[in-house]
Each structure stands twice: as structure tokens, then as C-alpha cells.
């Protein structure tokens, strides 16, 4: 598991990345992130929603209520054009950071 301090820094990237594939509601977003990172990144309700509301306030994501086939109403989030624009520099920043850390600590891909 990744330490909470490091996870906090990666949260925006994780959420924006998972929304890049299409709109998702909060629970599904958390589930996908956990699944795609093999459980290394886990979002609970307490960690996910303040972040989603912050991203929505910044205009990077937009939430809208939708009704599923089963009749359940869920608030689905999608990336806005502004959010799509932000994702690329954030990715680049993290990529640079990981490369720098690899050079510094000799940590390599498994």
C-alpha cells in the first residue's frame, strides 16, 4: 500500500485520469481506481468527495444527475474541456517527478 501522504498528492491525477475514459459516478470512480491500481490506491467516501467538489469548483469536472437502467439516480462526473487541458501538464509533472526519483533513489520498474 502507498502511504497516505503520497496518495494525497496523486489524487487529482488519479481522478482526472479515470474520468478521461468517460463519465463515472463517485463509487464507480473509486472502484475503477482501486481495480486499475491493483488496490494500491483506494478512495473512500471521505477522501473522494471533497476532492471531486474541489475539482468541480475549479471547473475541471462537471457533475450531473443521471438515472441508470436500474432506476437509481447517481451524480455522474465528466471531464470538462478545461479539465482535459489540465490533465496533460499534471501528467507531465508527475512523469518528471517519477523519473527524477528513479534517478535519485535507483528505484526501478518491477
Amino acid at each position: 500500500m502507498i502511504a497516505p501522504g503520497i496518495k494525497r498528492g496523486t489524487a487529482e491525477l488519479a481522478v482526472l485520469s479515470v474520468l478521461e475514459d468517460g463519465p463515472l459516478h463517485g463509487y464507480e470512480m473509486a472502484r475503477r481506481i482501486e481495480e486499475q491500481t491493483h488496490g494500491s490506491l483506494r478512495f473512500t467516501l471521505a477522501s473522494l468527495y471533497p476532492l471531486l467538489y474541489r475539482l468541480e469548483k475549479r471547473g475541471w469536472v462537471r457533475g450531473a444527475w443521471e438515472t441508470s437502467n436500474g432506476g437509481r439516480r447517481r451524480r455522474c462526473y465528466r471531464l470538462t474541456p478545461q479539465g482535459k487541458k489540465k490533465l496533460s501538464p499534471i501528467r507531465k509533472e508527475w512523469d518528471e517527478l517519477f523519473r527524477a526519483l528513479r534517478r535519485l533513489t535507483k528505484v526501478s520498474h518491477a
Partner: protein
Amino acid sequence: MRDWEALVDARLAGLVLDPAARAEVIAELGAHLEDACDGLQRRGMTEEEAVQCTLSQVEDWQNLRRKIQTVRTKENIMNDRVRQLWLPGLVTLLLWMGLFVLIQIFDPNHWIVARKSVWSHIVPAAVIYIPLILSLPVLGAMGAYLSASAGGSRRAVICSTVFPVSPYLVVFIVAVPAALIADRNVILTPLLVGLFAWVIFPVVGLLAGGSLVQTFVSRRLDSRRIVGC
């Protein structure tokens, strides 16, 4: 079947938002818990185990309430553009204007040049101008710091840094060409001197301070982001 919305409503009792926004948050969080509980039961947990596990997602409801309250209210007061551009720019512009007024209040004419000479026009102007120019790196640094700290992009930080010059720039871009069109006998040399004195040199001074701070703040923010604060 458990009423997750009622549970969230009770736990977030102190959440003060307008009724529609509050109802939306309660419904959304309730739906999340419902989905989480259903998911855990599908994975083989008993209902009781799933409920316990779902509730453990929030260790401190008061902390969650505070976070949601902050995000959904305080950030409304100023949007990003105001915090990253207009506020830093206007603060530095007002400070520069304030300094200009202060220097004029002390009126160097009375205590520097007592008698008429060649210097009687140059010295007072220099006494006003030099402190103003020397203050610019500090003001530029302040504008850059306020903008960068608010998460401003590189462009927003630069615009905030050079903002105090904007009124003079507008004069040279709009008023001077208009004056030249209206009166073709306008002498260009003083205008050029004015352009350098009130636009070019101040921009250099502001950027000198601003770029230093921008470098410093961006390094600090990067390191803070690395440790996840």
C-alpha cells in the same frame, strides 16, 4: 433496506449549505454508501459485515463535514481568476499608487531645490522617480507571490507581476496614438522618454522581483506536492 441518505443526513447534521446544495450532497453520499454496501455484499460479505465495512469509510464525519463546507462555500467567495490575477494585480497597483502619493505629499520641491537652476526640474523628478523604480522589484515579487500561491499559471503570475504598469501601457497604446492623430505637431521625444520611464523600465523592475519569487515559489510548491501536503 438501510436508509443511507438518512444516515448521512444525521451524521452531517452541522453541514450548512443552501437547502438544494445540501440535499444534493446528502443524496450523493448516501448513494455512494449504498453502492459500496451492495458491492461488498456481492463479494460475499453478510449485510452486517458490509454495513460495518461501509461505515468505516468515514472515520471522522465532522472532519468530512468541515471539508465539504469549506470546498462548497469558501471557495465561492473568489474564483480562481480573481485570486490568481485580479487580486494580486490590484494590490500591487494600489501599493505603487500609494507610494507615489506618499512621495508627492512630502513634496521634494521644498526641501531639495531652493533656488532656480538647471537641476531644479531634474532633481525633484528624480527624487520621485528613483524610489518608485526601486520599489518595483518588491512590488513585482509581491504580485508574483500572491498569484503563484493561489495556484496561478505562469501567464497569470507574469500578468499579476506587471499589472501596476497596465494604466500607463493603456495610455501609450490608446491615448498617444489618438493624440498623434488629432495633432500632428506633437513632439515624439518626450513621449518616448515617457514610454521608457513609465512602461519599459518599470516592467523590467517588476519582472526582476517577480521572476525571482516565481522560481522560489514554484520550487516550494513542487516539493510540497511531492510530499502530498
